[in-house]
């Protein structure tokens, strides 16, 4: 039985061993995105007047661009960009890719299969991927979880959940 892992998570954990591999690429991506958004902000109303619809978006995207320049300028010196292998082991591990794929699959299946079937399949697959023990137990836990969530949202909160071909 796994103990709860208390070490993970946290909105704001400090990364002790410096920036993880790939930060240069990610910062570059954010800088590029900021520039695109800044251009978009400029196209809203240009410099028509100081109270037009585009001024505040330009200020906000401008802040994004400037802060990204500060971040990249500060990180260049101490950050080695890291090897591709470390990036794929540390930032995008096989487990994270597999789990994210399951989530995407779940969302795509939500409308054709409906909430009950899609959620059950997702929970079973995801729990088996992460837990890897007692396959039968995960089948039961998934079934109970789906029943409780469905009951709660459908009958207590009266939320209309996506329906599929069968349910």
């Amino acid at each position, binding site marked *: 039985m*796994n*103990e*709860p*892992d*208390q*070490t*993970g*998570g*946290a*909105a*704001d*954990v400090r*990364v002790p061993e410096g920036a*993880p591999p790939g*930060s240069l690429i*990610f910062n570059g991506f954010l800088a590029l995105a*900021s520039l695109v958004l800044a251009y*978009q902000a400029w196209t*809203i*109303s240009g410099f028509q007047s*100081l*109270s037009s*619809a585009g*001024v*505040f*978006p330009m200020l*906000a995207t401008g802040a*994004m661009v400037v*802060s*990204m320049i500060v*971040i990249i300028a*500060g990180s260049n010196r101490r950050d080695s960009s890291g090897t591709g292998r470390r990036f794929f082991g540390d*930032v995008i*591990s096989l*487990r*994270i890719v597999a*789990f*994210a794929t399951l*989530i*995407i699959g779940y*969302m795509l299946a*939500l*409308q054709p299969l409906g*909430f009950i079937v899609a*959620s059950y399949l*997702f*929970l079973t697959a*995801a*729990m088996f991927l*992460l*837990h*890897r023990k007692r396959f039968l137990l995960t089948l039961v836990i998934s079934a109970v979880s789906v029943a409780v*969530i469905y009951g709660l*949202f459908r009958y*207590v*909160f*009266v*939320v*209309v*959940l996506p329906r599929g071909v069968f349910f």
Partner: protein
Amino acid sequence: MENFGYFFMGWLDPSLLAWTAIGTFAGIYIGAIPGLSVTMAASILISFTFTWDVNDALALIAGVYMGGVYGGSRTAILLNIPGAPSAVATALDGYPLAQRGEAGPAIGLSTVMSVIGGFVGILALAVAAPVISQFALMFAPRDYLLIAIIGILLVGSLASNSLAKGIFAASLGIVIGLVGMDPMTAQARFTFGEFSLMGGISYVAAMIGFFGVAEVLYQLRTFDLPAIKQKVGNIIPKWSLIRKYLPLSLQSSAIGVTIGALPGTGGDIAALLAYDQAKRTVKNPSRPFGEGAYEGLVAPESANNAAVGGAYVPMLTLGIPGDAVTAIIIGALYIHGLKPGPLLMVETPHLFWFIVGNLVLANIFLLIFGLSGIKLFSKIVEMPKGIILPLIVVLSVVGTFAVQNSVTDVYWMLAFGILGYFLKVYGFPVAPVILGIILGPLMDVSYRRAMISARDDVMIFAGEFFTSPLSLILTLSLIAIVVGQTPLWARLRGRKAAATS
């Protein structure tokens, strides 16, 4: 005052009593479970309760609100995951405490301090509501803008080591919040020609994405690390401990009420401000801040629950929401045919006293459930991650879908989840993004109103920040915060400290 009898209405009616209790109990768990937010729960409850009697609905929502603001602290302490934005500051010292094996006292103390803060907030609501409403009436658009900038700067600088990363995160949030049709000119902004983006991006989707799915993915990264079991012992705090921190609690509560009463700013900013204030003023903390100081727990937990009472003040007196949850409660009041605003207190004063009495009741239930439910809570916390993470994903999907019955929102949520994962990995704080999303539209409108009233003249616009007394105070505090963040200031202080030691 003849309406004061309504104060006890919720106490004597069994069904109102029950709904308040259920609301508070559920609120604690909703606040504690990451990805489930009070805002989301409140908005779902609106659709669920609109056929109910207005008093029942208000009782349930008040309970959820009170419990939810507190509940976030539980997971902040035990898992270092703030269950709600208002618990972000709680995690800074709460989690180190749990790592030292003091999770029990930490939870107990934060419960009692939340209740004390809650009472201070309600007292302020009952006593000072008319006064504060008069004060708030003097706020000009530029003051709203200043307050929002102060809030964002504080969150940006507190939530990470790098102010630049904090500002980037907040600006990103503002841009996300501005997506859609401009409310003043109906121009499309950041829609990339997509018609579906005209209505904007649901901030519930963004919030669940950044705090739910991103968190799940982030936890997978550290999945293989050896597990540490938190020991939660006796959680009833010692009387001496409560007495020792009572002055700090009352001081933080005062901050909480004030921030809560400011439009738009709720428990999250109140908690961060109170934490910051405690960090500056407390001379000899039990441990250095950030390493498990009880002061770092008392301040935000008192403040965020005090902000609940504070947030009701502008809602009931002016019809302006004090934070996101009170914005939803305003919606609920409209559904029930009531108009929150200056006339609410005149036409239905009994409603005011009913709400005050009901909040007191919810606070009492908070003390009872907060100090007793820990066994059950630990069971949830002790569930293997391999089971709880997929469940959080399902709840995130259902919750996002539920708000607008929209699958598009679910896709947005996943996109924000993946973006949030990378932001977290590379050391960007996520909390300022959410604040930016909520405050962005407010800042935009406030800025433009201020600029229009200055007739687009930069000199008049800038001059007004220094001529009105209220704006002057806010401007000066803003300057103080900015100067306090610069490397020059840190160096000056470092030199001064070196000289004295």
